[in-house]
Every structure is written in structure tokens, then in C-alpha cells.
């Protein structure tokens, strides 16, 4: 598989820190039958960005935009992680040695183990390093 096949489109939603915004996002996605694999919230003063990996990013984008949300796509990669102590360190260390900077990451636990989602400054290098170390990257097709 080409490196491109591992680039996954995350949806990023601008949200004010006020009650009900996350619920509104979740409710909109539910109505569109969009399944959320993973999400995280990053906060600054007064506002935040809700990041989510979903099974139908375009549909999610359309719906949230039509509800007035400000939505953007962000490229991330997803790595299968050993579900035991040291699993995170292994991947972080691997990327560090390859000179790849992790801008942020979040994780989820699926039926077949943990998955680490990474936003990095140089995705091609990250993909090469991870594959070179024999770690399993999840293809974007797995999220559609």
C-alpha cells in the first residue's frame, strides 16, 4: 500500500466552551447515522476544537456545516498499539528518533486492541518510520 492510503481524514470542529455544544455535535452526527470511532477535545481560553474520527467524514462535514459549525478536515495517521505498559512509549520514541514531531495524539481501545491517532508535522516520514519498525498502521479505508 502507498503511504497515502494511511492518511486519514479527521474532522475538526471549532466550538465555543459553552454548555451543549458537544451534545449538539454528537446529536447531529447521530441523526446522520455517522459513527464516531474516536474523539478528543482540545481547549484554549474560551474556545476549543473537537476532533473526531468518523466512518463518513463527508456526511459529517456537510451536516455540521449546515448546522452552522465551522468544520475542517485534518490529516492524521492511526497506529495499532500494544495494549500493555510501554505501548505508547514505543511509538512515541520511534517517531522521536525519526525526527517527527507529534503535534497531538489521542487513543481509543477497540475490540482488537488499542489504536493511537497521531497528528504529526511530517506524515510521510512518520509512516515510513512506523512501517520500517514493523508496526501496524491502519489504512484510511478502515474508517469508511
Amino acid at each position: 500500500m502507498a503511504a497515502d492510503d494511511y492518511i486519514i481524514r479527521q474532522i475538526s470542529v471549532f466550538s465555543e466552551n459553552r454548555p451543549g455544544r458537544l451534545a449538539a455535535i454528537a446529536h447531529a452526527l447521530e441523526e446522520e447515522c455517522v459513527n464516531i470511532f474516536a474523539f478528543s477535545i482540545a481547549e484554549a481560553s474560551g474556545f476549543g476544537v473537537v476532533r473526531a474520527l468518523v466512518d463518513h467524514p463527508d456526511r459529517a462535514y456537510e451536516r455540521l456545516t449546515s448546522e452552522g459549525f465551522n468544520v475542517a478536515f485534518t490529516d492524521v495517521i492511526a497506529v495499532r498499539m500494544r495494549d500493555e505498559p510501554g505501548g505508547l512509549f514505543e511509538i512515541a520514541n520511534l517517531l522521536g528518533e525519526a525526527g517527527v514531531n507529534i503535534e497531538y495524539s489521542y487513543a481509543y481501545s477497540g475490540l482488537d486492541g488499542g489504536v493511537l491517532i497521531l497528528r504529526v508535522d511530517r506524515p510521510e516520514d512518520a509512516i515510513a518510520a512506523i512501517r520500517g519498525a514493523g508496526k501496524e498502521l491502519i489504512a484510511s479505508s478502515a474508517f469508511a
Partner: protein
Amino acid sequence: MYWDEKHETMRQAELEALQLRRLRETLTRVQNVEFYRDLLEREGVRAEEIRTLEDVRRLPFTKKQDLRSGYPFGFFAVPMRDVVRIHTTSGTTGKPTVVGYTRGDLDNWSGLIARNMTMVGLTADDVFQNAVNMGMFTGGLGFHYGAEKIGMTVLPAGTGNTKRQVEMIDDFGVTAIHCTPSYAMHLAEVAEEMGSDLASLKCGIFGAEAWSDATRSELQDRLGVTAYDSYGLSELYGPGVAFECPEQDGLHIWHDSYLVEIIDPVTGEPLGPGERGELVVTPLVKEAMPLLRYRTGDITMLYEDDCPCGRTMRIARFSGRVDDMLIIRGINVFPSQIEHVLMAMPEVGDQFMVYVDRGERHLDEMTIEVEIKRRFFSGELADLARLQERIVRALREALELRTHVRLVEPGSLPRFEGKSKRVIDRRGTL
């Protein structure tokens, strides 16, 4: 190009001598007005004591309310047989303010307008469409007489029937138009609907409303004109008091005809060049209705440097009314200054809200809510945080004040026509 090169480019020393002579003449004229006779006597100021231009500060201010109290002709300094024209300015409440003109006044006034229009390159070869109200409002006849003085072909088009206005521009080869910026925007829309590109039009004179630099770019693009800001006040004749030159950077105010002061609107103390405050004007050549230190309520500042065009000192484009001013930690802040900063940032939407609170230790806190334009959202929190910091920095530079900036979701702020409702001052309610 100058209409009156001598007065437009007069050297400082010569100008000041002329101003002083005319100020003293004005002091003589106001003796014919009961209000001023009483006021000067009450304040204990005698005309002979005004020996230098700085002495003008010893004179009392004249306020809009004073003029209202003189309704209708209480401020006329000449007999009615010498008054050849009357205009009025509509007040929001009560009676209008009445302004009278002698034949000499009309000549002076149209001369000032002729200076303005010549300054932006208009000549007897131009065809001028005057698309403002022609009635008691000073804007219509003021420009009419000024343009005729230059020898331009004048169309007293008035307002309304915009399709007909577009047709006239095209059929008569109109090269210059005068109207309010909002009517200009409407005219652009109608012309676009009619499929006209207003090919002959090259010069737009816009006044009677405050308008932003963003509006300037839009009007220039859509009408195919160079847009100039025109400032005037009926009490000071009408339009023609100050006008932009081709540099489009500040307005030339005609110092030989208007003695200009910028004051702190709260203390009344004079402010220097570069300091924003209220424009106070003593007209120097008005005959029918002379005024002393008239408080315009308009906010501007004197430029520190000279204009490359060679004319006398400029004032900044107007940035609001004294009535809108906020005092935050002792610093005067105008909502329009905030608007200017935000308008200059492409990432930020057109709407904003300002909240003023009394925070901890009784310090005033100002919070500004702004919308981020959709296409500028990258999806990255760090980019938003950087933008927020950049807005705070730009505001601090413009206002000399640390503010809080909140980024809010697009479309979430209320939409208003005017500026004043954008400010919610919650200090009084605590």
C-alpha cells in the same frame, strides 16, 4: 491642481496671522448675538484679551444644545434682509437647528467645495451627478453651487429612482458622483442587476455617514471610481469643511476658514497632533451665523506630518462620536477604533461585540467577541490561539489597552446596522 493655491498651501506663519485676524473679526461679529454677549460677559472674557491664537482657549465652548435653545433665528448675527438662504439640520428629537447664510457665506462655502473637487482632479470638463437630498439638507445645494462654480455640468439628481440614476450616468457620460456611501452601495447593486458597468464614472465623493476602509475598497471596485471622504457639518456651512486629497490618507481641513482644536471630550483640555479627541471648530469666515469653539461631537486627530500634496495640515478620518466613547481604566476608547482593527484582519468576520465589566480590584475589563471566518479555520487549535493573540496585540497597539478577545462560532453574534448597540457596558449594574 489647486482652486485657491494661496490659501490651500499657505505657510504656517502667514496662516496663523490670517487666522488671528479672522478670529478677531469673528469675535466682533458674535457681539451681535445676544447669546454670545451674555456668555462672554458671564465668563468674564473680553474680545480685546484674545491676542494670540492660543487665547482661543479662554473662550467658552458652544454646544449643539445651545443652538437648539436659540431656535429659530437666535444665533443670526445679521439682519434678516442680509440672510439669503436657510438650511436646517434634523435633530433626532425636538426642533431642528437653523442655519443662515449671507451672500458672502454662500460664496465662501461654494469656494470651499470648489477647492475640494478641484483637489481630486475635477474640472469644467466633468459631468457631476449630485445624488443626495436637495432640500433643507446642506449636502445637496452645497455641492451643487460648488460644482457650478468650477463650471462642471451638474445633474441635481437627488435620491431615489435608482434605475434612472444608472441610466443617467450611462447616457450623460457622468464622470463624478456625490452620495452617501450606503446609497452608493445600493447604486452599485442596481447597476450590476441592469448589466451596466458605469464605464464613464471615475470619481466618487461620499459623505454624511461614517464609512470604513473596507467599504472604500468595495465601492472603488464595484463602481470603478476613486472614492473620497467628505466631511462637513451644517453648523459649519455644511459639506466642504474637510476632504480627502488624492493621497486618500486623512482629510484636509481648510485652516484659513476653520480654526481647529482637538480636545479631550471629558476634561476639555487641548490634545496635540496624534492624539484622538473631539473636533472643536471656530469658523473664521462665517457671517450670518458665527460660532465660537463649536463642539462637533466628532472624533478625529491632527496628523503629525505634512501631506505630500503640499496642502495644510490634515485630520484623520472620523472614528466615531463622542457619545459612543467609553472610558476604560481612564483611557478613551471608541467602538470604531475596535472596528478598524478588526476590519484590517481578513480572518475576522464583520460582526463584533464589546463587553465592559468591572473586574477584580475594581479594574475595568473589556472583552471583545469576534467571529472567525469559516475559510480561515484550519482545524488546528494552535492556529486559533495564535490568531487570538494577534488580535489582542493589534488592539493593544491601537487602544493602548489590554483587552480580552473571545473567538466565537461564525454566525453566532447578533447582526446590527449601527455601531452603538455593539457595546454592552455592565459596570453600572454592579
